[in-house]
C-alpha cells in the first residue's frame, strides 16, 4: 500500500530532477547571445512599455471565491459516493439535502448576477446600467474625450482594453 505512494513520490522527485538536469545540460550546447531587444517583452513589434503586473478585473477573483466554496462542498461528496450503496436510503436522503443546499447556493449566485461575465454592460449602454448617474465632472471629461455617443458593449470594452 504505502509502497505505491512511495513509487509516486520517487517518480515525482525523479521527474523534477530529470527535467531540470536536462535543461541545465542542454543549456550548455545551445547558443546564448542575449541582447536588449531580445530580452524586451514581446508586444507585437510595439516598443514595450510598463510592467504588466497591474490590477486586473475583479470578477476573476469572484469566480475563484465561488469556486473554492463549491470545491469544498464537492470534496465532501467523494466519500459519500463511495459508501453510497452500503448506506442505503439514509445516504440518499443526506445527499439529497446536501446537494439541494449546493443548488440553492448556485442559484443564489446566479440570481445575484455574479455568474454573468458581461454584467456591467449587460443592458447595452452605460448610462442605463448605472445605479445612479456618474458625477458631473466625470461625465464632462468623458464627453470631451469623445466617448459621448454612449458606447455599445464592444466599444466600452475596447476603451477599457486600450486605455
Amino acid at each position, binding site marked *: 500500500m504505502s509502497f*505505491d505512494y512511495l513509487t509516486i513520490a520517487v517518480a*515525482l522527485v525523479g521527474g523534477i530532477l530529470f527535467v531540470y538536469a536536462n535543461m541545465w545540460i542542454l543549456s550548455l550546447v545551445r547558443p546564448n547571445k542575449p541582447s536588449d531587444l531580445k530580452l524586451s517583452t514581446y508586444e507585437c513589434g510595439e516598443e514595450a512599455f510598463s510592467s504588466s503586473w497591474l490590477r486586473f478585473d475583479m470578477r476573476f477573483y469572484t469566480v475563484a471565491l465561488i469556486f473554492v466554496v463549491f470545491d469544498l462542498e464537492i470534496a465532501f461528496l467523494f466519500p459519500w459516493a463511495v459508501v453510497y450503496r452500503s448506506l442505503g436510503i439514509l445516504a440518499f436522503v443526506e445527499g439529497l439535502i446536501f446537494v439541494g443546499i449546493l443548488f440553492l447556493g448556485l442559484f443564489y449566485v446566479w440570481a445575484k448576477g455574479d455568474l454573468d461575465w458581461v454584467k456591467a454592460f449587460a443592458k447595452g449602454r452605460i448610462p442605463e446600467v448605472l445605479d445612479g448617474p456618474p458625477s458631473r465632472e466625470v461625465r464632462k471629461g468623458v464627453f470631451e474625450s469623445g466617448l459621448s455617443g454612449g458606447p455599445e458593449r464592444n466599444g466600452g470594452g475596447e476603451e477599457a482594453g486600450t486605455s
Partner: protein
Amino acid sequence: MTTAALIATLVKIAVFFGITISLAAVSTLFERKISAWIQQRYGPNRVGPWGVLQPLADGLKFIFKEEVAPAGANRLLFRLAPAMAAAPAFMTVAVVPFTFPLILDGTRIPMAIADIDIGVLFFMAMGSLAVYGIMLGGWASNNKYSLLGGLRSSAQMISYELAMMVSVITVLTLAGSMNLTRIFEAQIPLWNIAVFPVGTIAFGIFLIAAFAETNRHPFDLAECETELVGGFHTEYSSMKFALFFLGEYSAMVMMSGLITTFFLGGPSLFGLVNGIEDPWIKVLAGLGVFLAKVCFFLFLFIWVRWTIPRFRWDQLMHLGWKLLLPLSLANLLLAGTLVATGVL
C-alpha cells in the same frame, strides 16, 4: 517488499511512461497531419517518409534553440512554471490502469504503476494542480498577452473542474470505489457510457470538461492566437516551451485514458478480452484494446480542434457555470435516485 514486486514496478514505470510520452510525441505529428487532411493540404512531408520523423526534428530544434527570458520576468517562477505545467499529467500516469491485472501463480499484479485506493482523488488533485503552470507562466513572464492568457485559462480551468468532479462522483456512485482498476472492472458487464441516462450524461459532461481542462479547442482561450499571440507561453522558448508543449499533449493522452477508464470499460471489450485464459495474452490484448480507445479519443481531440470555432469568453463561463454544473448536479441526484431505488 520482494525483489519481484520491485522489478514489476520498475518495468511498469518504464513501459507506461514510455507509452505516454511516445503517444504524446506521435499525436503532435498527427495533429499536423490530420489538420492538413481536414484542410486539404499535405502537412509535414519532408522529414522521413510521410513526415514520420517530424517529432524527432522538432525535439532537436527545441534543444538547439536559444533560450530567452524577458528582462522584467520573475526568474524563479518563470523557471518553475513549465515543470509545473508538465508534472501533473505525468503524475496522473501513475494511477491509470493500462490493462487487466496480471495473475501469475495466484498473485495479482495490478497494471497501474501505483494501484492506490484513492486513485480518483489523486487524479482530481493532480488535475487541480495543473492550473499553476499556466497561471504562473502567464504571470511570471511580465508580458501583457501572457497575463491575459494565463488569467483566462486559470479561471476557465477552475470553472470546468467542478463539473468534471461531479461527473466523476456520478461514476463513483455506480462503481462504489475510488480505485481505478475496480472502476473499470465494475464495467466489464456494461460500460458506464451505456448506462442510460446517467452514465451517458456524465460521459458528455466529462468529455466537454476534459477539453476545457486541457485547454484544447474550442476552449483554447489561453492561447487564442488571433488576440493573444501565444497566450501564457508567448515569452517561452526552447526547452521551456517544449515542456509546455509536452505537458499539453501528455494531458490529452491522460484525459483520453481516464475517459476510457471511467466510461468505456478500460481494456475490456464486450467480455471478449476478459474471457482469454492465458494471462499474458490477456494482458497484452487488454493493453491493445485500451490503447485503441485512447487513440480514438486523441483523434477526437484533434478532429474537434480543426472543426469547431473557438468560444467567446462569456459564452465559455456561461456554459461552465450555468449549464454544465447544474446539469451534472442534477445528473448526480438522478443517479442517486436510480441506485437507491434499485434500478441500477
